[in-house]
């Protein structure tokens, strides 16, 4: 067992982990931040996407020990300070960007990473960026629409509801 310390959503967090403990397991099982979902556990589906030092990673395919000292952001830290939904989260609600919701934490974290680097992405760029985030409900159209809307762009011309 080894001690790891990191910043999670702006707060200091630490714990004892085994070498094999995944970052997703540390977040969910030890920090009880269960908003980060584990879908496939094989780095395909993207439900577990979090930000580590500002970039999107699949937390099921990173060891907790590797995140020692890192700045980690999860879905729990995305809402505004007053508890209201942030722009991306609100856009997902407004544009029906989710159905069962299982993939949504990863979708929102990927969207946040995309918009940080590319504040006004094209529809094709959004779809390309979501290559590693799988949704089995929506068919993606409304997720793409939500992300476009969150970037402040007109979404009238994007695929029908």
């Amino acid at each position, binding site marked *: 067992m080894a001690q790891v310390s990191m910043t999670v959503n702006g707060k200091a967090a630490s714990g004892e982990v085994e070498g094999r403990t995944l970052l997703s397991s540390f977040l969910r099982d030890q920090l009880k931040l269960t908003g980060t979902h584990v879908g496939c556990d094989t780095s395909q589906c993207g439900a577990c996407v979090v930000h580590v030092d500002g970039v999107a990673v699949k937390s099921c395919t990173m060891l907790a020990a*590797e995140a020692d000292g890192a700045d980690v952001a999860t879905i729990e830290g995305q809402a505004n300070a007053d508890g209201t939904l942030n722009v991306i989260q609100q856009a997902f609600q407004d544009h029906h960007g989710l159905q069962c919701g299982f993939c949504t934490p990863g979708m929102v974290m990927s969207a946040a990473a995309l918009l940080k680097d590319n504040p006004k992405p094209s529809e094709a760029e959004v779809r390309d960026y979501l290559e590693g985030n799988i949704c089995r409900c929506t068919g993606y159209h409304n997720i793409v629409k939500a992300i476009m809307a969150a970037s402040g762009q007109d979404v009238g011309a994007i695929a029908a509801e």
Partner: protein
Amino acid sequence: MYNFDVVKPARIADAVKELSDSSESQPLGGGQTLIPTLKQRLASPEKLVSLAGIDEMKGVCKGEDGSVCIGGATTHATVAAEAGDYPALAATAAHIGDPAVRNRGTIGGSLANNDPSACYPAAALASGAIIKTNAREIAADDYFQGMFTTALDEGEIITEVRFPVPEAANYQKFVQPASRFALVGVFVAKYGGGVRVAITGASNDGVFRWAEAEAALSTNFSASALDGLSLSGDDMISDLHGTGAYRAHLCAVMTKRAVTAAG
């Protein structure tokens, strides 16, 4: 996963020492292949030596001879963003896996693993890259020795990869849609001394050069120079995604597309 210890050395020399302490030690690059492998219990190291904290193995720079030098622990995302002096290489890196995978996966990890369907082996072989390790420099032609097999010794670490920059180059990947690995990928690079063509995803022996296509393209660098050339599918990978004959056909198609795109 079986359990293991994790160490994070800050210098190449310390990593080499950690790896030489025990034959049950294994280097960990970005972990995008190794961690899934460990989950399946296909590997059971006692100790993983993470290379992610070694700053001297990170980044893209320009060598004195104009080549593009990439540290072994450099992520695909960084290569995509910073290897602009070799646009076809940056474009190749930009289409490996997905964005989150590109933020972790490294060039050294990919080349050390030498997956028969990975993109970087094709780029390195077609470019005649030099694979620099903690112990020596290995030419790409000597480095790739078959599926998941390389010239690396136990505990040897890829510290840098040096790519001579070609006059024209392009990589065309026919994506296997579930994994986003190459069903077939072809990297074509035109140098003053001739054209090199490297193909990944197709052969049971891993990445390989297509000599007949290279000869034809060195005389006439156009897709029509490839008319009539074909590869046999007999020794190619046959699986549920495609037969050997299908992959052999794709090799010629993707080579033509790469030549056309390279201009």
